[in-house]
């Protein structure tokens, strides 16, 4: 779907979307269309329950006296509530109503809304952004989709008085959408296509945007001493990988921001194998790594004035004759030893080495890791919040605020020392699991042992990475939760100038 911005009345084909404020208040263009069509709009509203509430719609087919095939009335809600996030949601609503409606072109008439803080240009840009996010589909492997199920919408035109300003406002959002699309593609791909080396290859493709990419194979990691990460991958035929992505958009002397992702390309659980039901979901156990790749792309595409390093640990967790066993003790890069009680608590083993490597090598401003880490976080927070754990109050507050602003909310959970004794081991420095109680917290306490004096936040995204139902700007499937959140965090607090 292509998104463009144009002056009003430049296009007359397809469907026209008109805005209506709560209380059936017609905006200027809507009023004009109404009078040009002999009161079609007001008559249709009067005959319906359409009130103009946010995301309410009313479809009018073949409107008399107009060239358009159909009109879609779009409820905006009260003017004062209209902000960027709400505008994005409206874009999502337009797409959900018209994606497969047989119209190749949809024009949305953007009017100036009195009482809203949003300019028409920003309104148009954000509506376009929401539409783009919602229009995502992963249909690479459908070979026989019926024509009526395929998207018809090819072109979304945002008709606005100042298309130049809207285009300018849209550019950074388009970059974020590119990042989100990449993340969703990587998460949606099956594990026979995306495995450590192929995922590293996808990350390497970011060099075309000016990102420096390094790949470390098993030999190199063994030399460094990454015993925890390598132990997880040793049951697989596929070679484990560590990928470092660097975007140097800031001053050379500024320490980078570090984003770290768990990339278990398939998690069978290993010898502590998972039950069969739902195991196919474990193709998205690399969601954290995919978010880091998508974020790097978004930042590079908009030439963000900031230094960022993305580090992802890529492994496949498989049972086999060479697999890690429950009870094995591994030595991490930090020198600390871990007794592997459960081979299915493998994400924290990978992250332990990647966290240590990142802070040692890059001395970053902060480290934020993302991981589909625990089932416990689904019992704690469900699919509406990611779990946030941090050793820094300011970073936590910033992440919380950014999450609310973009609609990817996080909720902070505690890291008290009292939880630490749950991961004490009889024979090593620690165990990799701490029991059923406080399962997400003990996982975070484990990671905390691999953080020195660096500001650090851990996002447990196990509940939010894959959605079973459509959301306002996220079709069901891979959400890319984290790309927009972290992009906003960087934009709001860490860019030069």
């Amino acid at each position: 779907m292509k998104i463009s911005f144009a002056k009003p009345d430049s296009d007359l084909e397809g469907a026209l979307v008109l805005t209506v404020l709560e209380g059936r208040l017609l905006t200027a263009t809507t009023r004009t269309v109404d009078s040009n069509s002999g009161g079609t709009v007001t008559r249709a509203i009067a005959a319906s329950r359409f009130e103009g509430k946010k995301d309410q719609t009313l479809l009018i087919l073949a409107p008399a006296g107009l060239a358009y095939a159909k009109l879609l009335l779009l409820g905006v809600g009260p003017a004062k509530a209209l902000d960027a996030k709400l505008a994005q949601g409206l874009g999502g609503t337009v797409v959900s109503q018209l994606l497969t409606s047989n119209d190749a072109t949809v024009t949305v008439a953007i009017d100036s809304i009195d009482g809203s803080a949003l300019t028409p240009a920003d309104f148009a840009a954000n509506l376009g952004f929401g539409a783009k996010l919602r229009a995502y589909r992963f249909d690479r492997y459908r070979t026989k989709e019926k024509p009526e199920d395929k998207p018809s919408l090819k072109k979304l035109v945002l008709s606005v008085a100042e298309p130049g300003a809207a285009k300018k406002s849209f550019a950074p959002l388009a970059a974020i959408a590119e990042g989100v699309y990449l993340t969703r593609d990587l998460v949606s791909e099956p594990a026979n296509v995306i495995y450590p080396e192929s995922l590293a290859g996808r990350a390497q493709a970011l060099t075309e945007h000016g990102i420096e990419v390094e790949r470390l194979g098993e030999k190199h990691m063994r030399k460094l001493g990454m015993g925890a990460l390598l132990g997880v991958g040793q049951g697989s035929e596929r070679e484990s990988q560590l990928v470092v992505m660097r975007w140097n958009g800031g001053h050379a002397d500024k320490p980078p921001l570090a984003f770290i992702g768990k990339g278990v390309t398939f998690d069978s659980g290993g010898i502590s194998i998972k039950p069969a039901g739902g195991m196919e979901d474990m193709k998205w156990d690399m969601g954290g790594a995919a978010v880091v790749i998508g974020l790097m792309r978004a930042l590079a595409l908009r030439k963000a004035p900031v230094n960022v390093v993305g580090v992802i640990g890529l492994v496949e967790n498989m049972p086999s004759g060479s697999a890690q066993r429950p009870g094995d003790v591994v030595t991490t890069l930090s020198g600390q030893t871990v007794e592997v009680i459960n081979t299915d608590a493998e994400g924290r083993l990978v992250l332990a080495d990647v966290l240590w490597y990142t802070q040692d090598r890059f001395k970053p401003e902060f480290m934020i890791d993302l991981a589909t880490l625990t089932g416990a976080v689904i019992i704690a927070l469900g699919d509406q919040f990611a779990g946030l754990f941090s050793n820094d109050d300011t970073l936590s507050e910033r992440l919380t605020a950014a999450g609310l602003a973009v609609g990817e909310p996080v909720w902070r959970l505690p890291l008290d020392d009292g939880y630490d004794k749950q991961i004490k081991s009889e024979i090593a420095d620690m165990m990799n699991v701490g029991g059923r109680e406080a399962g997400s917290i003990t996982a975070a306490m484990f990671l905390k042992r691999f953080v020195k004096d660096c500001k650090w936040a851990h996002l447990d995204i196990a509940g939010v990475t894959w959605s079973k139902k459509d959301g306002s700007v996220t079709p069901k499937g891979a959400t890319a939760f984290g790309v927009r959140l972290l992009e906003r965090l960087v934009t709001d607090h860490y860019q030069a100038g």
Partner: protein
Amino acid sequence: MLTITYSRRAGPGALAIAAGSPAAQALLAQSDQPVFRDEPEQLLPILTPDGWRIVVGLGAPGGLSASVLRRIGGMLFARLAGGGIAHLQVDLALPSAQIAQLAYGMRLRAWRPAARYRQKADPEKIWHLNRVTLVCSTPKAVEACTVPLLQLASAVHLARDLAVAPANYLTPPAFVAALRDIEGVALELVDPARAGLALLQAVGQGSQYKPTLALLHWRGGAHQDAPVVLVGKGITFDTGGIDIKPRLNMHAMKGDMSGAAAVAGALQALAARRAPINAVGVLAIAENMPSGRALRPGDVIQGHAGLSVEVIDTDAEGRLVLADALSYAARRFHPSLMIDLATLTGAVEVTLGHHRAGLFTADDGLAASLVAAGEAEEEKLWRLPLTDRYDQAIASDVADLRNCTWERGPDALHAARFLQRFLPEGLAWAHLDIAGMSETDEDVPLGAAGPTGFGVRLLDRLLRDLFETAP
């Protein structure tokens, strides 16, 4: 029972002394004990010709917070209780308020299940220590600081006594009888059948004992002041009902009335110190049993608030009895503040484990006050989301609401939101899910393994902070 007395000077016998005192230094110099670190919770008993001297580590004088002193007291009792000393004198040269906190810690720790559940005392667990004398220059001042704390400790002990009682001893009528013994509060019983508390009625209908809503009134404030209402879940035994629980550890379900026990303890504490506020304790008491007349999964019940509830899981019964209790109390008392405590969900244990209880409220100020009170009293809370984002999970196909979903998800959040739906808007309300905190399976400084009495000290502290601090 540990008796606390006060004296100006020490007599012969066992004596606890501060590690930094000249007497202790002289003893440590002679002792063959290689190192003694003068830190809180370090103890060294030394037998001298004058009797036992217990060297007590206190660390730097600035580090002695109330919480550290309580821990030292708890440790002191735990270490010495079975050691042959019947009378311990404590002379640590501390200010009155500090020695009081230490004595408070000793008394909190000096609790165990009532002897009536045993034929013979366990010889491993005999306590010799039954009297502690606080030696100080101003016994009257120390006594004045200590007595209110000991009263509070008794209230915590009441909550533990109720929670530890086997469910054949503490049946619903026996629970009510125990409430009659609380001094200074007026007990009122509400018949669920007459008051329209159909949800409470339904949960109890499988049992041979009738459910009841017990109200404990304390009127220490002005006549016209709106009361504070404290609500507790009081399921004297929770089998799960027709959705019966797995048998492993089901005996622990005798503690499913710990929320109500904490409320009873809190009311006893308010009355004991004649708190200048009005308060009502609301205890939703029922037994959840499977039987030929028990509540069935799928049943629809219309409770006090008028909302109908489809019962998906008869083992999600706590939220049913609380819904009626909260609705009834909100509409009858128009409280200035309402807090409920309940051993409500397994999900909160998966979330927060055994270090913090889940706190749910829409009121940021109340959340901050509760969190602060919890930190001050070692009864820690962590706020979790109270949100309409999960309303789909408690939406029913046939009734206004359902009590839960079988889908794997944040049941503690669903339960909190379920409760909120039964309350009038704008009411200052908080819900504490104490399922992970009502019992401890290991000894802690202020209690042995078993029921903790969690909530009594937290509530007492909160109400003092909110209503009884001089402006």
